[in-house]
């Protein structure tokens, strides 16, 4: 699984844009699939090095961050409930305002 951070977000996690991660997750409530919700909490614990509020708000991403699963807006795949499989590519994009 690869994650890319753009638009300043990469500064929050080691200035690295691409992370190949192996997410190990515990089975919860009988669910045996990793969802975006599970991934986000994993990212928060394991990848975000500073100022988590720049990335998350509550259990979802903060306003102004677009989440793309395999190049597709996660709004189209069920947001936090989007289930993930091996080799899926998740991209977090911070919206840009400058010009």
């Amino acid at each position, binding site marked *: 699984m690869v994650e890319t951070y753009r638009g*300043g977000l990469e500064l929050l996690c080691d*200035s690295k844009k691409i992370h190949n991660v192996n997410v190990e997750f515990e089975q919860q409530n009988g669910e045996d699939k990793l969802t975006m919700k599970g991934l986000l909490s994993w990212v928060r614990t394991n990848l975000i090095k500073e100022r988590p509020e720049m990335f998350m708000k509550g259990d979802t991403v*903060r*306003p*102004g961050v677009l989440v793309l699963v395999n190049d597709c807006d996660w709004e189209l795949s069920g947001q936090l409930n989007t289930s993930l499989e091996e080799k899926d590519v998740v991209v977090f994009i*911070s919206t840009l*305002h400058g010009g």
Partner: protein
Amino acid sequence: MSWRWGLGQANLLKSSILVVGAGGLGAPALLYFAASGVGKLGIVDHDKVELNNMHRQIIHTEAYIGQPKVKSAAAACRSVNSSIEVVEHQEALRTSNALEIFSKYDIIVDATDNAPTRYMISDCCVVLGKPLVSGAAVGLEGQLTIYNHNGGPCYRCLFPTPPPRTACQSCADAGVLGVVPGIIGCLQALEAIKIAASVGEPLSGRMLLFDALSARIRIVKIRGRSMQCEACGENSTFNQQYFREFDYEKFTQTPLCVFWLSLRPIMKLIFESRISSKEYSEIILNKEPHVLVDVRPAHHFKIVSLPNSLNIPFSTLESRLPEISSILKKDEEEKDAVSESSAPPLYVVCRRGNDSQRAVQYLHKMGFNSAKDIVGGVESWAQNVDPNFPTY
């Protein structure tokens, strides 16, 4: 060819396009609109031409420094193509004038640089039913999409809640390479011309992401119009009256003119934070106190290095920041006797000058404001200062 540009050209001549912002994005877009013969071309901007901006606002010439950007941009457009109508709107865009200005044009191009204006422009386009070609660039990245067109989303569909203030970087805050907004501005021109000429497939419901550093362009699918959208949704009460009274600064908690306030940092990044190897050799000659950090990998450093340099490979920079802090502090204390109390300058060198620039950007971000990089690295040192310095 499945379409004839002749027809498109005729459509273009009849069309009218408004560009909001005559800066880094607007500059190339305006030139292409003029050159390609857009019938009526409007420009909104309240700023003046500054030398500081010229590296990215290529429509302006030195002769216009201190004059309104709108005037300078309009003159450039007219000199490119005298047959088109160019309209100057030399004022800041506000809820009080946006409806009136926008209603005179078919297509709106957002070439601005801050969040409140972006929401205002999108809402105004929704209220008036105009397509919006929106571009943005910060640092080495750019984004592009078309809002409110062909059933696609508006800006609020995508970003119903404004980001926190600290997350907004205008290009001045973040530093920008002129060619990056230039590329996005050219793409904005292309998309607007496609809409005006009714050719091709507009970038609606999709977003183009440009990453200059890795030379990658990615086009992603974004959501369609949201039924719950406050501006364009089914039960939206957003109309002209509501728009006029909407407080965008309060909504985004950002003043409309962040850009002005933060013009300085970028200059530091571009002009002040680099020195040449020759300049550095003079610093050594004059025995000026300073700290030199070499960010090359350790095995390179072992082969050859500049005198009195400290090796902190780029990959370990973050974890060794405290070390740099304490060295600077120590030097500062020693210097205190000489009555100057600021930390000594910090110079960063690498092999050719790329990693050192990245390191300096990072160091600035982390509060090491005195950090400067040596242009061209040790190779430039060997070439311009010490021909006996071995290169590898």
